[in-house]
């Protein structure tokens, strides 16, 4: 059967058409054209994008939880409104990204189902707990700092809806890192107890933040193809290095110590060289063995489950009160 099919003239012609299409597709990407939802795209491109965008969306939604943990305990009203606005932004970013993913033909309902069933991944950073107020500072400074580093190149991603979502997200996130650093600055200029709180937060968030860039290039499975498709613009290690180089002086300004005894400045390369990253921890957290994996998913499941009757009620109400198709002219 197999050889027969291959030998048939129709199959050979189809193969040729397929490889031509692939070439044309790659040529469009090489010319920096944007791919739009209804354009032809290789199935592998669609799948890679879908996985990446969904993972990104899930990260935003799960990411609301560790910071949300401190909204009710923010130590001033100014800090409280800032944190609410920030967590709210993350919800918005999740929405933009789910919308981008939906253009690839999978509904948000299905994507959320994948998250809640534990099949989908999200950034493992959100499986760490927020134990003190300083963690809110450290997350803004380090986690958002790392996220921005990752996200800015995605504004030029080859897939139009994803690139446009990222433009909006990056614009909105520009205050996130600054508010985090401001918290760290206030703490580090505060009482001894506050300084200790800030140092402890840096100690706990430093390494997980470096791991946010993903495994080193040598062990990254998707990098080469994703770079060719311009879904990814820089390698994990390049971005990680950039992050370390900008962040270490910021820590020095705070008077806090980066928890890496091997960290040194390489004069000739003009880079900071970090000590080895403990990838076993990264893989353990990714596998579900992080400190809060269970709590995060349970919180999402609880919210989704508790909201079901509400969503059903709204749908039932809409059904009963379906408005006439052209209620008011747009103006």
């Amino acid at each position, binding site marked *: 059967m197999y050889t027969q099919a291959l030998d048939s003239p129709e199959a050979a012609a189809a193969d040729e058409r397929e490889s031509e299409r692939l070439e044309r597709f790659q040529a469009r990407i090489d010319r920096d054209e944007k791919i739009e939802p*209804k354009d032809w795209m290789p199935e592998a491109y669609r799948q890679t994008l879908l996985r990446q965008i969904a993972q990104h969306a899930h990260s935003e939604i799960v990411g609301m939880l560790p910071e949300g943990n401190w909204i009710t305990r923010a130590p001033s009203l100014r800090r409280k409104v800032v944190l609410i606005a920030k967590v709210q932004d993350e919800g918005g970013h999740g*929405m933009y990204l789910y919308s981008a993913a939906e253009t690839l033909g999978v509904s948000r309902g299905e994507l959320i189902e994948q998250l809640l069933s534990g099949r989908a991944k999200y950034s493992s950073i959100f499986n760490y707990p927020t134990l003190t107020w300083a963690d809110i500072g450290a997350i803004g400074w380090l986690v958002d700092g790392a996220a921005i580093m990752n996200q800015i190149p995605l504004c030029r991603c080859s897939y139009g809806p994803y690139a446009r979502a990222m433009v909006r997200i990056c614009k909105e996130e520009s205050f996130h890192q600054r508010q985090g650093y401001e918290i760290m600055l206030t703490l580090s200029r505060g009482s001894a107890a506050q300084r200790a709180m800030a140092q402890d937060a840096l100690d706990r968030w430093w390494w997980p933040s470096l791991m946010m860039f993903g495994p080193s290039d040598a062990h990254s499975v998707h990098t080469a193809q994703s770079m060719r498709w311009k879904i990814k613009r820089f390698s994990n290690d390049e971005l990680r290095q950039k992050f370390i180089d900008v962040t270490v002086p910021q820590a020095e300004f705070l008077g806090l110590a980066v928890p890496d005894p091997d960290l040194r400045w390489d004069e000739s390369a003009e880079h900071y060289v970090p000590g080895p990253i403990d990838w076993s921890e990264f893989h353990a957290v990714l596998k579900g063995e992080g400190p809060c994996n269970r709590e995060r998913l349970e919180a999402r499941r609880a919210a989704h489950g508790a909201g079901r009757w509400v*969503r059903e009620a*709204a749908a039932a109400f809409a059904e009963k009160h379906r408005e006439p198709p052209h209620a008011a002219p747009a103006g």
Partner: protein
Amino acid sequence: MNEDWVLYEVFIRSRSGLEHKHVGSLHAADARMAIEHARDTYTRRQEGVSIWVVRSSDIVASDPAEAEELFEPARDKVYRHPTFYAIPEDVKNI
């Protein structure tokens, strides 16, 4: 029971005098909710003064496969543009 709600596309007029521009999409059970969600999601930073929402399923789109026949025939009709016509520099107000 459909608890996933309907997908709407959102268009925002950013300032008085400008046209509505597509900004993204959202889910809502009804039109009023869609307007409210659009307001809460897409105008948090004073991005707009007017909102349109349209059910995504109501949008009719051109087919990218037909892009050549739809759009390329306009390419050589350069006489539709004012720069096509040579007028001596001495002639004013034209």
